[in-house]
């Protein structure tokens, strides 16, 4: 063996001491992290009234009464729910497609591995702003701008989803294999060509995966947007609650549960295709 690479007893003793030191440091850090998480959980729960006994006084009885009042579910008006259900799904589809189209260029431009800080910083600020405002608040804004109906819902979903998807796409872009990009650059391929031929082929199954997940989320989100007048099945539920029609409200919740389950199952199947598990 080459002398300079030999693991001598002195070196071995040195590394034994290093290993002990690293081990002590690692366990101390782990204990501190666990302690920190527990303290955070107890602190936040306690400060929101989680340990106040009087808060729990009549809660159980109210829930039982509500459940009793809503059984059996009442489907007698189900023929009038078809249009709101279709609207909800269409809002989800249009909102997701619009946000995906916007998030692809924003995601590429926001990647710190591709673009200079002068470009990435405003993109990150824009994505943060879009994401920071919940869909429901976007819904109120767009209902004011476009009036009641599904169009306001589409833009509300698209605005928040662009922020979320843009952030995901940025992170995905920052983690692509650099080798293929370097190869393209060494052959004089333009930045746009590197994005098209080096980055997108590595990303598009993941992009499709995240977008489908977002679509499933948007369908659930679209059901609540009705509450602020942005169309869909949400308005029916809010109306049923306001009229104390709990049996109809339960029927509507069951319909939404079925809708979301079907969409999730379909989404999972399509995702498997995109991720190549079925090919």
């Amino acid at each position: 063996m080459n002398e300079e690479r030999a693991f001598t007893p002195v070196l071995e003793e040195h590394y034994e001491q290093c290993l002990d030191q690293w081990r002590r440091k690692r366990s101390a850090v782990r204990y501190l992290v666990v302690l920190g998480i527990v303290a955070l959980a107890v602190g936040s729960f306690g400060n929101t009234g989680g340990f106040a006994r009087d808060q729990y006084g009549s809660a159980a009885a109210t829930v039982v009464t509500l459940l009793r009042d809503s059984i059996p579910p009442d489907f007698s008006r189900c023929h009038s729910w078809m249009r709101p259900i279709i609207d909800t799904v269409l809002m989800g589809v249009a909102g997701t497609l619009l946000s995906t189209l916007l998030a692809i260029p924003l995601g590429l431009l926001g990647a710190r591995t591709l673009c200079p800080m002068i470009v990435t910083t405003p993109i990150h600020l824009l994505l943060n702003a879009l994401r920071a405002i919940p869909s429901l608040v976007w819904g109120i804004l767009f209902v004011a701008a476009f009036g009641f109906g599904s169009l306001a819902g589409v833009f509300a979903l698209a605005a928040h989803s662009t922020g979320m998807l843009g952030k995901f796409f940025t992170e995905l872009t920052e983690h692509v294999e650099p080798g293929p990009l370097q190869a393209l650059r060494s052959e004089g391929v333009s930045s746009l060509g590197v994005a098209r031929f080096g980055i997108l082929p590595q990303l598009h199954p993941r992009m499709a995966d995240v977008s489908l997940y977002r679509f499933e989320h948007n369908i659930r989100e679209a059901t609540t947007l009705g509450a602020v007048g942005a169309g869909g099945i949400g308005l029916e539920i809010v109306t049923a609650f306001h009229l104390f029609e709990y049996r109809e409200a339960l029927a509507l919740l069951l319909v939404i549960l079925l809708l979301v389950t079907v969409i999730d199952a379909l989404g999972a199947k399509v995702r498997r295709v995109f991720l190549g598990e079925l090919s």
Partner: protein
Amino acid sequence: MDPTKTMKIRVERLDVKRSNRLILKDISFEIAGGEVTVIVGRSGVGKTTLLGALNGLFPCSAGTISILGLGELAEPRVLLEHQRRLATVFQERALIGRLSALDNVLLGFAGACSPFALNPFSREQERLAIRALASVGLAPSARSRVERLSGGEQQRVGIARALVREPSLLLGDEPFSSVDPAFVRYLCHEFRQLVENTKLAVVLTLHQLATARAVADRVIGLCEGTVVFNGRSPEFDASAERLVFGT
């Protein structure tokens, strides 16, 4: 091959820094079309950096690289034209694992295709890509995903991706490191044939000295970031080997 594409490169007093560390110091040599030049040296000596300087990925911090008939690489116009004429087989195979072998070879044409086209590669380019895969014995695996191929097969796809560009300068960073010895002999023979037929200039880094001696016309030995040997392949004897590897 277009005779005007015959390559001659002059490297003069080249320094290259990476992460503020001087990797290559005062390097000078020439590369000619119709020759295989092999760069040898211990790991970390700067072989990959030297290839990176030749393909324009790493800028020179001092000295020049001139291309006959084009000019100095420091000029953006010259660099772009030079890059269009070269191909590199990278050590970390620069392939996209989830694409097929054929699609990866087609990426060699990316510079000539529109990024906005839905089907960017022409039928003729597909035919050339299949032919390049056949030249490395992988035409039957054209539709297989690269991530499902063995390390040696992936390396051969990388070679096909470079060959399909019909370059006038072919750079290879340990291009045979995962290929089995029998196929290395075959590929060396193919490389030599290609060089003789097309007057292509080939620069390879190799750690197998027997392969280096078999394939090279010229050997350049690097030690501590400088050239310590530059001569014809038969001149690379035991004493030259000691000079380069210090053993």
